[in-house]
């Protein structure tokens, strides 16, 4: 077999190799932030397939082409070598792209702009509650070793599940009471678990998605923002975006599929795509979604 050669993986802001690329997709809400002018970005964190910038409009993420579009993110058309970047390095972003030293590194001209807002009509109309719960439960049953999934089945194997189970109970109870109770209980759940985004934060994102539909954006937003104070920067950003009603493209596809009672194959594929996010993040989100549907949605009950 031929030995692999070192080749030009697209590097961003490298002094030797500068390959400008057009982004494949961008978050529409993020783009609106730049209508009033350019913003400064600073490299916050770098990973193999993603990186985060901090900015005055929150965290902005660059994603490899194999990922799905996330809130306030830029989906690249080509893989990029994020490791070439050092933390704190400055960039500028505006509606035309991301630039460093006056040169555009990533262009937005041909990027598809996608609105990642959760539709307010989700889980209404043709939505059937029981089949949605069954589909989620059936998938999660095979993944009880991931994150907090076991909580759906009253499992308490992991130290995190044992620790969080009573807090989750309180959250679900509080959700039946008042917005204030919900906000306080969400705060008590945030920031617990293994992983970069602690499992309980991902669970909260799924749970608050349903809360925002049932109780209005305001309560869910307050709960998410308060909870975000109790976790790390990256997870806090995800929580705040969820509070603003912004979710990943895969999550929105799943919500759409469940809302219209899509065919079983499509539903399972959509669930599997969400579950594939991160190590356990996707399953934790689905766990929150499961409890959220259980606690907040009405929908037609199965015959």
């Amino acid at each position: 077999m031929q030995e692999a050669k070192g080749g030009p993986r697209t590097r961003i802001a490298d002094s030797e190799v500068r390959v400008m690329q057009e982004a494949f997709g961008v978050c529409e809400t993020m783009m609106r932030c730049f209508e009033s002018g350019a913003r400064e970005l600073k490299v916050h964190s770098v990973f193999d397939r993603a990186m985060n910038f901090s900015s005055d409009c929150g965290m902005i993420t660059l994603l490899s082409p194999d990922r799905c579009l996330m809130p306030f993110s830029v989906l690249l058309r080509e893989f990029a070598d994020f490791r070439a970047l050092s933390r704190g390095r400055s960039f500028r972003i505006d509606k035309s792209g991301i630039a460093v030293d006056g040169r555009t590194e990533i262009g937005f001209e041909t990027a598809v702009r996608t609105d990642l807002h959760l539709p307010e009509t989700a889980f209404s109309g043709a939505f059937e509650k029981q089949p949605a719960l069954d589909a989620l439960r059936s998938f999660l049953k095979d993944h009880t070793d991931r994150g907090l999934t076991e909580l759906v089945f009253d499992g308490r194997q992991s130290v995190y599940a044992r620790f969080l189970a009573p807090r989750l109970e309180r959250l679900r109870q509080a959700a039946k009471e008042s917005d204030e109770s919900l906000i306080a209980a969400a705060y008590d759940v945030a920031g617990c678990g293994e992983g970069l985004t602690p499992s309980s934060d991902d669970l909260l994102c799924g749970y608050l998605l349903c809360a925002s539909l049932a109780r209005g954006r305001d309560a869910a937003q307050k709960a998410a923002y308060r909870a975000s104070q109790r976790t790390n920067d990256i997870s806090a950003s995800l929580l705040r975006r969820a509070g603003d009603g912004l979710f990943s493209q895969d999550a929105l596809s799943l919500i759409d599929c469940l809302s219209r009672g899509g065919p079983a194959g499509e539903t399972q594929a959509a669930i599997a795509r969400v579950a594939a996010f991160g190590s356990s993040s996707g399953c934790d989100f689905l766990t929150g979604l499961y409890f959220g549907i259980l606690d907040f949605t009405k929908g037609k009950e199965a015959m």
Partner: protein
Amino acid sequence: MKKLEVRKNAYYDSVTLMTISKEVKKLDGVREALVGMGTDLNRDLVVSTGLKTDEFDAVTSNDFFIAAECESEEVFDAVVKKVDELLTKKSEKSKSDYFPPTLDGALRIEPDINVAIISVPGRFAAGVAQDCLNHGVNVMLFSDNVTLEEEKALKEYAVSKELLMMGPDCGTAMINGVPLAFANVIRHGDIGMVSASGTGSQEVSTIIDQLGCGISQMLGTGGRDLKKDIGGLMMKQCLDALIHDDETKIITLVSKPPAAEVAAEILKQAAEGGKPTVVCFIGGDPKLIEQYGLIPAVSLEDAAHKAVALSRGQTPVVFDSFDMGRENAEKFAKQETDKMAPGQKYVRGLYTGGTICDEAMKLMIGDLGHIYSNIPLSPEDRLENARKGPSKQDTFLDFGDDEFTVGRPHPMIDPSLRAERVVDEAKDPEVAIIQVDCVIGYGSHPDPAADLSDSIRQARELAQAEGRYLSVVATICGTDADPQGKAASRKKLEDAGAIVLPSNAQATRFTQLMLKNLRG
């Protein structure tokens, strides 16, 4: 002793964190460990699990921490070393990998590239394959979840450009001596193969190697190619390539029985090609094949034996016995069943290779009547909830089927689920025999026999403790030249008490002999 390691403002992706967490807990001398970001609740948890140290108060939510209770300083030093090793390993691995960002980029570096292996999420796969074909690059599409319509369009386009479009879900090929994806180290020779199944190709090619002959080319089509919707487009294209390949003197075709009209077209093409051709339509009707003057095979092993005979200029004869001889096999089977307790009567087949699981069931179904499975031969024999639920009477499971692979690697890469099941099945007092495969070679787990032999040992001990005798019948799909080594793998399995037969068909026949003894 409680110890703490902190990486300030350090962000590692979740997969890395989970790996660190698992590996640290496995280290000898580590009594308890928590790994994570220093958020309030994670800190509370550290306190409540008694892992808090004085320095812990300085940990913030953006810090990565490892809190552990270890037997000694040395153990904790080993923990820190392990963490560094995992983090460094990951970054070194990333630095040495070559990732051409685009096909255009790869072709700029290597303009002569003419084959691409594509393994991307299914929804992108057709687009990437089309891009390759547009550039005149032959495709081996490892990905699945490509629609039939997409597959047909890609294959029609490939045929129009005289290119190969192997797949989707094509896991095995060997072109000009280069193994692609899951493949074994096989001698070069004059037998060309086209196959619609991964482990089917591996089983035939490794037995050909075992018998002293070799392969010129081994091409794959993907499992749906011979369905009516696709019409065998790639089987015909590959067959044509072999007919015109000077190095190929003998052709072997392997697949499940095709749609009737597709079978007729392929058999006609093979007959007109003029090269001796062995056809193994696993479980199919041999008469149809004979009508075209071609040579039918009754099993994958038989296909290999017949191809080898033809390669040596001999007359092919049916091979449906044992390398050890039928009489010896019968004696050996009796020795095994004589040790079993009353009530032990069922077989459980636990496979990582789908085609060889299917072959075993087809060879056995005539004797058993019903075999319950997640890939059943008849719809009424489907085993519901095969992954989590119990087996039923005679059950064969394909651990590579979707139900077992959602969110997990293929069992040939990660055989742990199958290993757990081997032990679970031993708890059933009615189980007499567990039949397993062990697929080695490129792409497979670095040492599947080690994992499997541990579980075989446990299973047999468990049965023995309850006064039963469990017979484990195994087959290794691979060669001695494979990285894992067939002989080394065989020794591990035999040391664990398994009976290792030279082929899947022989393993199945041996199981049949034992079942006959048990059921009369």
